[in-house]
């Protein structure tokens, strides 16, 4: 029988991993483009809904599951590229940077409305990739998937950065777009890549989180905000930081929820956000950059 403390810790990790997934998507985009995608929540919903549709149509054999993962990834990447074309490219020379974020909000509205229309506002259940039958140290299958993905992403990302040419090019673009251009790198292409990867991560995340807590057409904006808070904690330019920040925020929410009265609990997260923004805006691991806003 797990003790109270262990139970809170496991809950923190599970919740934190969800926040981390949102945060990683945000950070991947921000790092390379300086843009915050306010439609990230809808992209998560997209991933979950895609899984829902596939499951309604097909039986869940291994082959179908693999195809699902691939398909959701491609879908996510495609949405990212489209968002680049619509929200980022037209405004590269414009003065009004607020419009870039407004553009992402517009996409959020469009997608959200479309999903709500089709799927209503109730929660649909989706069979997770790893079922409850799988257990490991107190974590059930779906939870394991949700925790494993951000860890894999961070490890994979760091490896890609260090050991592949593409990764080094991406880092070059993130660190110094002018320098990258002077090295013959077409930064526009890498912007598209950043958008695509960010959305791909979001869609996959949505699929796995859907397996855990069900899929809703309306992802509450509060969820996205938690992702932002986690990203800020970890540093908006650090992918590894996003994971740490997510877990930290999960712990704050879970432990705070247990020990603090309801009215105060949710304010704690936001109070922390304001403090971090005012005292150390680059978070734990990030670098201070100019945002495109």
């Amino acid at each position, binding site marked *: 029988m797990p003790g109270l403390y262990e139970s809170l810790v496991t809950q923190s990790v599970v919740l934190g991993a969800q926040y981390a997934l949102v945060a990683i998507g945000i950070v991947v985009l921000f790092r390379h483009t300086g843009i915050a995608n306010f439609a990230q929540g809808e992209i998560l919903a997209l991933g979950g809904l895609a899984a829902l549709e596939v499951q309604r149509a097909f039986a869940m054999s291994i082959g179908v599951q693999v195809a699902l993962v691939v398909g959701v990834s491609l879908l996510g990447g495609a949405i990212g590229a489209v968002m680049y074309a619509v929200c980022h490219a037209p405004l590269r020379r414009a003065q009004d940077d607020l419009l870039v974020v407004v553009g992402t909000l517009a996409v959020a509205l469009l997608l959200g409305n479309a999903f709500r229309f089709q799927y209503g506002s109730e929660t649909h259940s989706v069979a997770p990739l790893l079922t409850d039958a799988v257990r490991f140290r107190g974590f059930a299958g779906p939870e394991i998937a949700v925790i494993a993905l951000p860890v894999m992403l961070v490890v994979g990302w760091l490896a890609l950065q260090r050991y592949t*040419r593409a990764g*080094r*090019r991406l*880092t*070059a673009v993130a*660190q*110094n777009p*002018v*320098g*990258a*251009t*002077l*090295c*013959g*790198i*077409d*930064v526009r292409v890498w912007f598209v890549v950043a958008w695509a990867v960010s959305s791909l991560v979001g869609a996959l995340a949505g699929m796995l989180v859907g397996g855990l807590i069900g899929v809703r057409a309306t992802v509450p904006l509060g969820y996205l905000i938690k992702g932002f808070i986690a990203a800020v904690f970890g540093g908006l330019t650090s992918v590894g930081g996003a994971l740490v920040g997510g877990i930290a925020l999960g712990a704050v929410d879970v432990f705070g929820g247990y020990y603090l009265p309801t009215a105060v609990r949710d304010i704690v997260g936001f109070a922390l956000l304001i403090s971090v923004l005012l005292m150390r805006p680059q978070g734990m691991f990030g670098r201070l950059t100019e945002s495109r806003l």
Partner: protein
Amino acid sequence: MKLVIQDVEVHYGQALGVSIDTVEVAAGEIVGVLGPNGAGKSTLANCVSGILPISAGSIILDERDISRVRAHKRVRAGVVQVAQGRELFNDLTVAENLELGGLPRGEEPIESRMARCVDYFPALGSRMKQPAGSLSGGEQQMLAIGRALMSEPLILILDEPSTGLAPAIVEHMYGVLTAVRDRGVGILLIEQNADWALEVSQVIHVFESQHQVTTLRGDTLTRAALERAYMGHDDPVEGATPSAP
């Protein structure tokens, strides 16, 4: 192989950034661009490399008009700039910076190109695994030049490479640049330090207040002529080719 910059104008919004009559760079020569601060020299460098768009005129590389070609493609065509701010990737290692420089073009294998960079700049050799941001100013400049050389450029543009560097390092750097010139690269050298520019250049263009005012070559390429041009004297320089204001 020749780069011809003809009747070019660059604007920042409404304001004129620089107006160039004629600047040519051929293989195996160093062309200097001198002038006081704010004269438009960096603007010139940036429009040749493609970072700034031109609003009039043409830039032609060997019969090919590259005026509208995007900056990263100019690198692939062989026009590479070492920017005033060096624009290194501070969190990447020296080796990684060099490698990235070599990606866009080049026939020799990367390893041998890197070896030659280390030949030119031995200080880099012992720092290959250090992040670029931890190097001293002089080493960073050498890395920036090395990175540019990695792509085996036809035309190398240098924007005030000696700024803030100790004289011994500057001497070493110019030694490398003349060696590079002798291998057939054409160099467009933007400088404030006229001394070195005089040493190594075959032609010097003087810019002031966004305009090309004088071109010195051959017998007129003297320090006295330069001093007169810089210090605001109105009397014309004998034998120099004044450009129309």
